[in-house]
């Protein structure tokens, strides 16, 4: 079923792109590449690793491993409105409804045999303990070997050394399973691609800061989290280039005329995954999400001579996974850089890591005089969605801002 879904998506998007060969179509190219990744994951011909969100996908890719974080599948099931079936399976098997729905959806898919069987599992202790628990469940269910990357929360020399050493061990673990050693040349290319993608990302985000912003409410949705799956590849570089071209084109052609952009918003953490017309609502009211919290480059370029240390620094450097003061400072910096009028925090039900500091985030924004709307919503499980209530609160918030 899933293979067919991705295969149809690849065919459909390819057809559309062929009809418009001159167009930039960044988002379509991005979705096409993700669909190709999905197809590879379900093709049964690849070395597959299910991973935690902060796993080094560039390094794994250079070793010939098709890898993906499981929350990607949870989001996809939600966006295609097939998640309910899997939630029910997980809940019937004892997974609590209080838990994160990204994880409940994929656990249901595992139990329903709807996930590709991995060759091994790479868990990461960041960003959340719930995600790691799901990785252990995967390893238990599939009876596959499990490698865990403990990602320290504090950015210290000891922490970097510790994670670097683990990455070296991970390479040995992967080689043992694939029977392929790490090729320094392939890793060098992956890191080069990663650096090129990172540079383009910085340029994309700088363009998004323009007032009025060339972005709309959909174009960079969850981009920063998901693009990491592709950044070590030439396709990733091409996609980043396409986004940069698209935003430049929009600026040149005044795509977002000043009169359309009345309110500049920040979206905290992840977007709502199931169909919910919040983007349209924001459009109607002249509000543009100019920045998502996770759309940022917080790492230095990868040093091909010190690949493990570079990757370790990158993995620890994500403010979302650090202590609250770092995360809040990052949010404040973004708020200033993007000149936002307000922020929306969709307090994803079941997320102790992200949503757990709702109050502290609100205070952090209050300190810089930026209003925040806390929405109590499950971003993946729509079964208890109070649509009308959410809409009313968003409308009232935007009215207040305008």
């Amino acid at each position, binding site marked *: 079923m899933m293979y067919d879904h991705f295969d149809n998506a690849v065919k459909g998007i390819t057809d559309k792109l062929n009809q418009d060969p001159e167009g930039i179509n960044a988002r379509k190219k991005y979705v096409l590449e993700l669909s190709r990744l999905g197809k590879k994951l379900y093709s049964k011909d690849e070395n597959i690793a299910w991973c935690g969100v902060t796993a080094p996908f560039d390094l794994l890719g250079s070793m010939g491993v098709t890898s993906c974080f499981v929350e990607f599948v949870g989001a996809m099931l939600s966006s295609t409105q097939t998640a309910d079936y899997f939630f029910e399976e997980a809940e019937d098997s004892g997974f609590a409804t209080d838990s994160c729905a990204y994880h409940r959806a994929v656990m249901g898919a595992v139990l329903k045999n709807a996930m590709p069987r991995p060759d091994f599992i790479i868990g990461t202790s960041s960003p959340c303990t719930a995600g790691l628990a799901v990785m252990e469940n995967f390893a238990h269910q599939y009876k596959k070997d499990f490698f865990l990357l403990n990602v320290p929360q504090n950015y210290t020399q000891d922490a970097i050394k510790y994670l670097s050493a683990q990455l070296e061990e991970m390479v040995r673990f992967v080689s043992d399973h694939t029977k392929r050693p790490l090729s320094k040349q392939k890793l060098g290319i992956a890191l080069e691609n990663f650096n090129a993608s990172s540079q383009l990302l910085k340029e994309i985000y700088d363009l998004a800061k323009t007032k009025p912003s060339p972005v709309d409410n959909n174009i960079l949705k969850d981009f920063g989290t998901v693009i990491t799956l592709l950044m070590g590849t030439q396709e990733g570089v091409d996609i980043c280039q396409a986004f940069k071209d698209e935003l430049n084109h929009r600026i040149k052609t005044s795509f977002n005329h000043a009169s359309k952009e009345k309110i500049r918003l920040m979206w905290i953490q992840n977007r709502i995954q199931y169909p919910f017309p919040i983007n349209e609502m924001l459009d109607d009211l002249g509000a543009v999400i100019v920045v998502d919290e996770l759309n940022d480059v917080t790492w230095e370029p990868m040093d091909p001579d010190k690949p493990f240390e570079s990757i370790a620094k990158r993995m620890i450097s994500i403010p979302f996974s650090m202590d*609250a003061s770092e995360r809040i400072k990052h949010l404040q910096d973004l708020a200033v850089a993007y000149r936002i009028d307000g922020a929306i925090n969709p307090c994803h039900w079941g997320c102790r890591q992200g949503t757990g500091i709702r109050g502290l985030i609100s205070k952090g924004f209050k300190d810089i005089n930026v209003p925040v709307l806390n929405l109590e919503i499950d971003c993946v499980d729509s079964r208890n969605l109070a649509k009308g209530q959410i809409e009313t609160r968003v409308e009232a918030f935007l009215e207040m801002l305008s």
Partner: protein
Amino acid sequence: MSKKIGFTCAYTPVPLIEAAGFSPFRIFPESKAPDQAGHLLHDNLCPHVKKVLDRALEDDLPELEGMVFINSCDSMRRLADAWHEARPDDPIVLLDLPSGINSLSLDFLSKEYKRLAKILFKWNSEPFSIKKIKNEVAKWNLLAASVKKIEDTMSKDFFPGYASGLQQIINTAATDSTDKALLMAQNKIDPEKPVKDGQSPVFVFGNLLFDPKVYDLFEEWNVHVTASDFCTTSRFVTPVDTATDDNIFRALASSYMEQTPCARTMDTAKPGDIAQKIVQRAKESNARGVIGFTLKFCDPYLARIPMIRQALQKESIPFLMLEGDCTMGSMGQQQTRIEAFTEMLGV
């Protein structure tokens, strides 16, 4: 009055606190302080963390010289974050605790424990002393050995009041001193009351169950607690194996990580091993059934309950799963279910 260091997680080595000249003060989530923590954090957070934060916000704490936090789970990280806001004058140390057990993790944690020790000695303006640490560890091990003896006795027969007595000893170690707890333990090794028949032998596990009165209630409800695995019971009084490593911090790290860990810690070579460990402990303690008490919103436990249930089913061991805030206040609601469970177990 002795100077106290507050802490909240069982991965905090009490001997380090005492070696630096402080008394340990584990902050239990029991308080009449109003619910305020949700405003700083979120309401859908572990009630343990929220209630501890409520105590901090309401100043329902003794004078503390500092706080030790462990980033054992997302909720504990968030507690450390909120503490800065709730009690900005408290010196705080937050330790990074690895999730997996392997040689690199043990090295890293041993450095973290050494960092903690140095900070504690500094807070008390005491010269750093490995000798003092080793002395405190030796004392702690005596306590752990006494606790083990009491647990062994508990697993064989039912002695009224024995389980709550054990909890009082452990709580004394957590909130007062190892010396006092050791004295209590040595006096309590022989049960005060004679064996009583007719109770259902049950192994209990979960996050925390710290109130001695809860164990008295269990007895009223026909439960003989044969053994327990909470971070407020045996998991807290972790013996430190000093024989295998000269480096005391490495010995602390391997002992705390490897012995009956919390659900948040895993042996990656045996995914889901927590389930097997619970089966094993239930069998070893001669239990006929198992009751799990987990905190609402506790991801590490909630995510592992299905595999625990499956493992117990496979061994035909009846299992009752209860969720709540693990305090006396909420325990009354569980009476009917626990009584029905013990009735079903028979004797």
